[in-house]
């Protein structure tokens, strides 16, 4: 294109619309959760006790802090503090990785106990447990996948700030990346109580 067209508002609008589709994507799973929890109230209650509330809580705090750091990076890039911006994006990425490491150990423990979809042990427990752990792994798995995408997105943001493609007067892309990260955080805020805190 010979003349570069720039429309920050349009770009933000596009990002919000994309976030809407992401919410609807998870919405399908929340409906499924609602239906099966309604059908198996007691089993969901008992199965939830198997989950590790401390790790879940720590991960919630990690994501909340990471949302704060990425939000701060937007303010700092506007103030022209490039080094601080880079640090803030980097710490968001590090927090995201810690979240995934926790998730890995948490999932690993479930697998050791034979609590994973398709295992004979889980199948022997009854419908409610099968569905609870099916939903648990599917929803937290899809969420973890979004975290990985988020890490990649933030990695690009880091690079763009570094090479000065994102500047104090042109930072819409960083704001969009941050919006995506907040979405990932927000979904976890719903997943955490629905799985961990219903016991």
């Amino acid at each position, binding site marked *: 294109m010979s003349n570069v067209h720039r429309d920050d508002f*349009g*770009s933000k609008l*596009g990002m919000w619309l994309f976030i809407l589709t992401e919410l609807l*994507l998870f919405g*399908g799973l929340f409906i499924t959760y609602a239906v099966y929890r309604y059908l198996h109230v007691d089993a969901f209650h008992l199965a939830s006790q198997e989950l590790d509330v401390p790790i879940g809580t720590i991960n919630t705090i990690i994501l909340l802090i990471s949302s704060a750091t990425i939000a701060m990076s937007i303010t700092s890039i506007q103030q022209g503090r490039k080094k601080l911006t880079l640090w803030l994006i980097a710490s968001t990425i590090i927090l995201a990785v810690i979240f995934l490491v926790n998730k890995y150990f948490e999932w690993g423990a479930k697998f050791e106990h034979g609590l994973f*979809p*398709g295992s004979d042990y889980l199948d022997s427990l009854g419908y409610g447990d099968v569905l609870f752990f*099916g939903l648990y792994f599917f929803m937290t798995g899809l969420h973890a996948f979004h975290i990985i995408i988020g890490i990649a997105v933030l990695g690009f943001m880091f690079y763009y700030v570094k090479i000065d493609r994102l500047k104090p007067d042109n930072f819409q892309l960083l704001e969009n990346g941050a919006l995506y990260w907040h979405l990932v955080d927000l979904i976890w805020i719903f997943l955490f109580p629905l799985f961990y805190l219903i016991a």
Partner: protein
Amino acid sequence: MDNTSQENYLEYRGRFKGLMGWLTSTDHKRIGLMYMYAIMFFFIIAAILGLLMRIEKIAPGQTIMDAQTYNGVFTIHGIIMIFIIVIPGLAAVFGNFFLPIMIGAKDVAFPKLNLLSWYIYVAGSILVVASLFAGGGPPDTGWTFYAPYSFKTGTNMLPAVLGAFVLGFSSILTGLNFIVTIHRLRAPGMSWMKMPVFPWTLYGTAWIQLLATPIVGITLLMVIGERVFNIGFFDPAKGGDPILYQHLFWIYSHPAVYIMILPAMGAISEIIPTFSRKTLFGYKAVVFSTLAIAFVGYFVWGHHMFTSGMSGTALFTFSILTFLVAIPSAIKVFNWVSTMHQGSISTDVPFLWAASFIFVFMIGGLTGLVLGALATNVHVHDTAFVVGHFHFIVFGGTGFAFFGALHYWFPKIYGRMYDRTWARTGWLIFFIGFIALYGPMFYLGMTGMPRRYFDYLPEYHGPNILSTFGALIMVTGFVIIVVNLFKSAKSGKKAEMNPWGGTNLEWQVPSPPPLENFDEIPTIDKATYKYE
């Protein structure tokens, strides 16, 4: 006529030339055409599959393929036709090409995303077609992937389901792009109520794409989860509910019908005023009925499941809503006919397609009410009647509008005019073939022939022969139309800027349009479709 200093988009040479120049182009016009070539290619594959099905049914018993092959053929035919052809359909081809021009913009809001959508589309399409050939045999569930069979069958479900998921992603991104484009890039002075109907219908479609597609996306992911990880969401043996699958699937797939038909209605609303030399009758009614269809269309999915097991209240509600959604469609038909009334009609090729669109669309719509009514639905559920209705709406609606739009905008796209005599001949043969092909299905369904069977009882033989011959006639018409257009695109007579006397912006730029559409963004000061 050429009052612009720019090269036209077909000749423009960017960083790369030839094929690479197209594959790396973010120009909305080139992307629109790339969609069209891809759609035409896959349409030919799916049409051949359709023809094979008809040949199989020319006589009772096994004719050219066995039952399992037939299951695979109708499944792939459905997946390609629905997800690869009619859902992107007019929006991806003519929407991409004409939306920016019609609202006075230089391109869509996110040109790079637009190109990415095309690549995602091609990737999804290749996955779907690959499921035909990879080991295990073609998928055999029908395009609806009904659970639990979709994760029990040993055939290639994974590539097909994954392909449909990927295609959905492409559809979402296109919708997102169009919404932002329409909100942000309308030319100065083009208020919402001065926007032509085709962009309006694209706007309605884009919202459906955005709000409904993620649901089918997650549903297909869940089916993949069932197959790969044995989760049990929809598996009755593990406490899952197959009916829940049907709900989630149709929450998207019914609105998807409106994704297909709304831009078709938009194209017809462009053609009819131009060839009647009259302002579109009831512009506001057409616009609001578009939004009404998009909105009410969300709440009618249950009518696909009248025999699946739902409460009486739910059945009743879905049936009422289905009747309601027919009203805005009927409003549109009245508006089109009223536009023609006392107009100075020229029965040129695009008008013939538009008029025949109204004819087949009405048959499709009215038979839809037969299916929307609870009592008659039970009688004709899963019979050939449904197949007839569906093809009248989707092929008769979207397909006829696609050809109408193609013949209408062809001189603008290629800057050349096609041979009108051959185009008329092709249309007539196609139209006759279409009616002969799908018309008998209503009778067959009413008398009880089920759909999706490779065989039938001897008493259904007569109408099936007629139907198969209809298919052969229609294919003849199709070949004439395509060959004529293909030759004309290369060596037709040069077309003028405004061969039909249209009033909208696309007729005020040279044919073919210059790279950036306009030298200077126009200012709009009058309502659309003004002929006085």
